[in-house]
């Protein structure tokens, strides 16, 4: 599971109001190279929850993203390459996603998060 996907996931348990972002428990991270596409990254930038991305990225072992951003950074290839790496090349293979409100764990196996709810959570 890439961080671009993690950036879209929140806890769907009934009654939870602060379900984003899901905390990450890491057991295995894999890096897979992907072609650099700066236009895509520039388009995505406005839609990303930045703090969630930097936190998640650090948890997966990549701490190079700046904490604060400004539009000029989108002109910088160096910045875009860091964004590229964090968003698309880091994969959480094994571990769990944790609801920040309830602590409930959604296991991640082979990169696939299991977000099926139990009957009492629906």
């Amino acid at each position, binding site marked *: 599971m890439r961080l671009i996907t993690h950036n879209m996931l929140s806890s769907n348990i009934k009654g939870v109001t602060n379900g984003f972002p899901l905390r990450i428990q890491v057991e295995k991270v894999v890096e*897979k190279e*992907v072609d650099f596409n700066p236009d895509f990254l520039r388009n995505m930038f406005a839609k*990303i929850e930045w703090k969630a991305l930097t936190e998640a990225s650090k948890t997966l072992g990549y701490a190079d993203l700046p904490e604060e951003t400004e539009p000029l950074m989108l002109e910088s290839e160096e910045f875009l390459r860091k964004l590229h790496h964090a968003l698309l090349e880091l994969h959480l293979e094994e571990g769990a996603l944790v609801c920040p409100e309830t602590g409930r764990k959604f296991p991640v196996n082979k990169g*696939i*998060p299991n977000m*099926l709810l139990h009957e009492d959570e629906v």
Partner: protein
Amino acid sequence: MVKRGNNPLFLQLAVLKDEVKQLESLLGSLRQFESPKIELEQYPTGSHIASRLLYTADTSFGDVRDKVVADFGCGCGTLGLAAGLLRAQHVIGYEVDAETVEIAFSNADELEIDMDFILCNIKNFRFPDNHVIDTVVMNPPFGTRNKGADVDFLRVALKVASKAVYSLHKTTTRDHIQRTSIRELGASSAEVLCELRFDLPQLYKFHKKKKVDVAVDLWRFVPKSTCER
């Protein structure tokens, strides 16, 4: 098999370029459901329909290449993987059945496509408001087992997609889908791209015939633009 309908909105899909045939061939080699579950209406999408659906979405509308594509109810991953083969930037498959996700995962591995999968129920899943997903492609349940399932999927897809939703629905539901999508589900447009015939082999014991031919519409919906929502 693709048959032409009398539909005035008919779009020629059968431009048999090599790329479509290659795509169809790759998709045709994928593993499918081993013990399809009736209550989930599990049927393979079929490489013929899948290749043409994605090829059209890509070449006629620019909705695939370099985009973020979601496959709702991805099953064995056929539609999502087709998007990946057509160079979508990122593809996510959403599926409720764990056994099926295993198959989809192995298919992605086989094709060397990096597709993310999420095991979840679309109906209670929380999607963010930021419209990271550009295009939704899906072959949703027809609603024969769980009434209204087809519309449920469409409702979610139209909330989530920023550019377009491609979906397959029984031709018998055409008027209903047209009305509902525009009046209730927030589509700014709804177009039948073409009518297809879906060959369903005798998957379930209760099917009397060996093969059942179902007329299916391939739809393209455009959600209202994000500022209107």
